[in-house]
Structures are given as C-alpha cells and as structure tokens.
C-alpha cells in the first residue's frame, strides 16, 4: 500500500495536493470537473473582513508560459463566506484552507477570530504577499518585522494551523521564513506571484487595469522550486509548494526540493482536471519507483 497522507503543520491531508488560493474559487466552480473529495485540501479565494470589489479590468494578461493577474482580492467578505460558502464545503470530506488578507493587524486578528469560530475551517493561509492590493498585501510580506507581526497576531487568535504565504519578491526569503517561523507559523506556503507587468504597444500604456500584476504559471516554476529548495534547508517548518505546477512531474520537483504538500494554481485554467492528474501522477511515480510513503520524497534532492 502506498501512503499519500501528509501532515502540513497539524493539518492532516489525505494526499499532498491542494489548490492555490484564487485559482479555484470557493469550490463549486470546479466541482463538475474534479471530485472535491479526492483533494488533499481545498484552498479558497483570498478572503477579507469586508467585501471587496477588486481592481478595474482588464484583470488578466497572457505572458510567455504564464499569466499576469490583478484581481485585487475581490471577495464577498468573511461573513458571507461563512454563511454561503462554508455550508457547501462542509458537504465534502476535505479540509478547507481559508486564505486571509487584511489592511491591518487588527483586520487579521478579527478575521482570524471569526473563521476560528466558524464550523468547517481546517487551517488559515495568511496572505502577506498579494502584489495586487495597495494597502496590506505585499508590504507585509517583504518586510520581516511586519510579516512576523501579522503571523503573531493570527497565531494568538486561533487554534487552527497557521500557514504563512510568502512573497518571492524579496532579496532573502529565508530571513522572512525564519521570522514567521519564530512568530508561530505552523507551515509556509511558497510562493505567491512575482510582480510583473505588460505594456500594450498600440495604446502605449499598461495592459492591466491596475498597471502591475502577479505573474504565475509555468514561467515562474524555476523560481518557485529554487525558493522551496532554499527555505526547506533553512527552516524546519513544512512547506506547501506552488508556482507553475501543471503536471505530476512538476509537483514532484517541489516535493523533492522540500515541499510536504503542493498546490495547483494557474494550471486549473488550462486543464480543469489538473489537480486530479497531478494526484494520479504522483501515485504512479511512487508505484513505479517503489516509494511507499510520499514523505520519503520530501527534500530527497538534498537530503
């Protein structure tokens, strides 16, 4: 028998495959294509205390082997999420990771309390790395003290596993990883998008409504694998790896680099069954290579 189950900082997942926040909606959108019960966890769209409209359009642009997005955390707010989305998600036997963002540490504290009190939330992924919002977002994630402070506040207000989602747009990500580890994070999510932009040469202005956006998809995978590799060796926390994963082979690169679990993001848009294909492929690789427990592969490329 093959064991695919993993423990991501206290979050028990039946397999290492989850969805990247913002690329899988709140669950029902991909239900026609994916058996949600087979996912290791469902990570939902970034949620804030208050409802948010998000940024102006265009919100997406295609780039070589990637996309830029500037959605800007459009979401119905935490209360509507609890009232409308959680009941749907509770029908599934799959843990729910809620990705949270805020403008201030007070926001993070309050949303943490509300979600901790709600029924059906399994872990919090703390987004301190969104490149697409003016307030909060990436500024927390590129400053070590601010990042640690947010995590400390979330930690103090919850008993749920806390996953800190870090920005790759920094000089030394291991420093921030160490900071949030000390502040009480149970796991790290690596990576959020790279800051990028595209210019429309006909109009002679930026393509995206918000000028800059976050670069995701296969294009960024080499950067993401490098960051997982570096952080896994510097910090003892388990890692949720993501960034351009489209196939099981890609996912295995992250696991071998040191990720305990992985998330499929942009690839869902290209192949709505990408999560299932990745899961099946990991299982096949393990069978073909006589790997009994997926844990044996975690960090195997440097251990």
């Amino acid at each position, binding site marked *: 028998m093959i064991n695919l189950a993993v423990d991501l900082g206290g979050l028990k997942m039946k397999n290492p495959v989850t969805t990247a926040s913002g690329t899988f909606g709140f669950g029902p959108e991909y239900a026609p294509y994916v058996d949600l019960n087979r996912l290791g966890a469902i990570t939902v769209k970034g949620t804030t205390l208050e409802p948010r409209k998000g940024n102006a359009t265009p919100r997406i642009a295609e780039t070589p082997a990637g996309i830029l997005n500037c959605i800007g955390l459009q979401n119905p707010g935490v209360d509507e999420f609890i009232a409308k989305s959680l009941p749907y998600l509770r029908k599934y036997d799959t843990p729910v990771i809620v990705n949270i963002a805020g403008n201030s540490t007070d926001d993070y504290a309050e949303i943490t309390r509300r979600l901790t009190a709600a029924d059906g939330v399994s872990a919090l992924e703390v987004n301190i790395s969104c490149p697409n919002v003016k307030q909060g977002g990436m500024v927390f994630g590129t400053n070590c003290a601010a990042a640690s402070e947010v995590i400390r506040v979330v930690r103090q207000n919850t008993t749920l596993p806390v996953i800190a989602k870090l920005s790759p747009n920094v000089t030394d990500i291991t420093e921030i990883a160490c900071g949030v580890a000390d502040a009480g994070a149970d796991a790290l999510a690596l990576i959020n998008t790279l800051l990028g932009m595209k210019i429309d040469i006909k109009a002679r202005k930026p393509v995206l409504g918000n000028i800059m956006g976050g670069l995701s998809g296969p294009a960024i995978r080499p950067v993401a694998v490098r960051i997982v590799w570096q952080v896994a060796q510097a910090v003892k926390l388990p890692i949720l790896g993501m960034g351009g994963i489209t196939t099981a082979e890609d996912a295995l690169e992250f696991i071998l680099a040191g990720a305990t679990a992985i998330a499929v993001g942009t690839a869902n*848009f290209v192949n709505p069954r990408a999560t299932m294909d990745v899961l099946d492929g990991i299982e096949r690789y393990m069978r073909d290579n006589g790997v009994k427990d997926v844990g044996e592969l975690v960090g195997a490329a440097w251990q």
Partner: protein
Amino acid sequence: MPYSGIAEVVVNKKVGPEHFLMRVLVPELTKEAKPGQFVHVRCHGEMDPLLRRPLSLHGIDYEHGTISLLYQVVGRGTRLLAEMPTGAEVDIMGPLGRGFTIPEKAQNVFVIGGGIGVAPLFPLVQALKHYKIEQTILLGARSADWVIGTGQLASLGVKVEAATDDGSLGYKGFVTDLVGKRIKVIKPDYFFACGPNPMLKALLEVTRKSGLDGQVSLEERMGCGVGACLACVCKTVASSELLVASGNGKTVDSGEWRVGSGTEKTVREFEYKKVCSDGPVFGAGEVIFDD
C-alpha cells in the same frame, strides 16, 4: 454538466478574409449546448500560449453531435487553431456560461451583430425561427467581405440587413446607426446583440433612448472560464438597486434600468459580475459600460 476533454476536428476551413469555421465532433458537449453559450478551447498542447480561448457556439448540430465555431484569426491562439488539420484533436471545455433566453412576450425582434459578434447569433436565429418569432438581423462590419454568413442566414429565410463602414454592402455607417433608423420603422419589441464592447455601448444608448429592452453578449479576457478566477468581470447595476443616470447628460427611462424586482432607491455602487458564468449574455438593463 459541462464536458472537458478531447474532440475531433471534422472540418476547419477559411470562410472569410481572416475567418475560419471549425466543426468539432463532441456529442457529450453538444447535447447540453444552448444558443449564446461558449466553449473554452486549448490551441495546442504546449505551455505557450498558455490560456484557453473562449469561442461562442456558432452552430449546434444535436443530431450529429457536432458544434461549429466561427472565429477570426487575431492573435497567436486563433492562428494555432486555424492550423489544425481535419482529424486533429482539440482540447475543449463546455458548454459554458448562460446563453440567450427568449422572453415570452417577444414577437418581433432585432438580432444585431458587430464583426465577429455574429458568431453566436446563428443558433439563436434558428431558435427564434423555431418559435416562429419575427426577426430582423442587422449585421455590421468594415466592408462587404467582412460580413460573414449573410448567405447562410438568407437561406434560413430571415431578413438580413447589413451596415458597412465603407458602404460596400448595405447601409454606409455603423450598425448601431442602422438600428436607430430601423427601430422607428420596424418597431421591434426586443433585441439580442453581440459585438465588441464599444459597439454594444453605442447600441445601448440607442435602445435605451427608444425604450427597447433586450440582451447583450459581452466579451472580456478570461482565465478559467468557469467562474473561479474573477478575471472576466463586467460592471452591472448592483442587485436590487436602480441606477439613475448620473452626471453625463443622458436621461433614460428608469423602467429600462430595472433589474429583477428592484425597487427605486438611491444611486449606489456597481456590482462586478462574471462574464464567463453570470454571462456572457446579460440583460441590456443590467450592464454598465465605463466611459
């Protein structure tokens, strides 16, 4: 439930200056397809270009299990599609989105297409014909060559009028101007339209002025196509609110702007809706175009 998987290209041929018609054998998808819905197509198997391309259902052949797509080559994705030979496999998802709904009261309608916006109107025209609803089709394009499908429409026995920028076919000018003129004569009770956003914006000014209600099919850049990524939003009147024309000088019949059972309230914020899953077809009273 929408289909997602491989389908066979049965026909893929040039039908206009930059236009191709692709017929695809995909019975699972066809059987649920409705006029105004779209499919999300992968143009090849590699990682660049990465995203799928949304294309409207241009033909739905329930009997043979095929759909057809009418597309214009504008960039890399559509160019790759145009290169697919007969027998090729194409990765396709659909049917997606909410299509046209034909209101009970409609008796005499305008079907308006701008440019490649004509693509989704064909199955609609067939449905209208099936329900024996009188229809006038008004198509706009830059010149005669670029008006696609008039022959096919004429063979259905429906009235087709064209407007071209250069006057090489039909009315010389914008199709929206033609609509303005013909509304007065034909006095339709409803309209359906598809075309580029600037055309639809101009069209809504015309139809609102005439108090004509209808439905429009919008375009927006898409990621997922299924409502998950929030990339494809358009501005709509906030639910249960009444939008009163604001400072830009337009006065509109407030009745036209009512959505659902909305009661008259103060002006409030717009609401973003998703073109891919709340649309692509929206009520004409619902959409807000930025200036």
